[in-house]
């Protein structure tokens, strides 16, 4: 088993729900051969260096997984048939990729925001109290 990285381009006008649908489709295709998916994330929307099917922009999606050589060949042939995927490429990785922890980051960010709000509220309360005291 070796680690591989697959990158593929999708039409830029697709909405998030449709993007997720395609992403999950690809993931299911990878999972069919009992492979382990480490990462699967949207890299971003970029301008293409040259037009593919008369389209000049594209959203890139990256997946990291471990698989056998024969499975990767099958995946590539499956991806070529797909209409929604403009272009794709698989690369063998020398080392195991770093697992992204997107969920944890978002949770942390949310909690930080909550704390900020709380602090602001407390400050507001203190100010109101002060103001009231001055008035009294």
């Amino acid at each position, binding site marked *: 088993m070796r680690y591989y990285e697959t990158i593929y381009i999708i039409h830029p006008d697709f909405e998030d729900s449709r993007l997720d649908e395609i992403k999950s489709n690809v993931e299911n295709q990878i999972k069919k051969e009992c492979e382990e998916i480490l990462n699967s994330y949207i890299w971003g929307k970029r301008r293409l*260096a*040259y037009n593919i099917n008369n389209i000049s922009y594209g959203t*890139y999606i990256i997946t990291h997984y471990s698989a056998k050589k024969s499975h990767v060949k099958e995946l590539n042939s499956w991806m070529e048939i797909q209409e929604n995927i403009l272009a794709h490429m698989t690369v063998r990785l020398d080392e195991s990729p770093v697992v992204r922890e997107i969920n944890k980051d978002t949770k942390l960010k949310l909690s930080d925001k909550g704390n900020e709000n709380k602090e602001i509220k407390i400050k507001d309360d203190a100010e109101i109290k002060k103001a009231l005291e001055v008035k009294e």
Partner: protein
Amino acid sequence: MSVIGRGNVCKFCEDKTIIIDYKNVRTIKKFVNEQGKIIPGRVTGVCAKCQRKLTRSIKRARNIALMSYTGDGFSY
């Protein structure tokens, strides 16, 4: 070896934090001609080992439309 030749140190060996990868196009595209051709290592001072990695990553970037084959439309 001439003294002038020694002054040109490989950029990637000097700074190990720079990763030669097809995804970080910003660093790679400095080693490409205006016409999109790969500049030889003897001009840029990149060592042979790093040059091999560079060419591989440039060719990969071209394949997935991150860099152009012909080099039109961007300047550095």
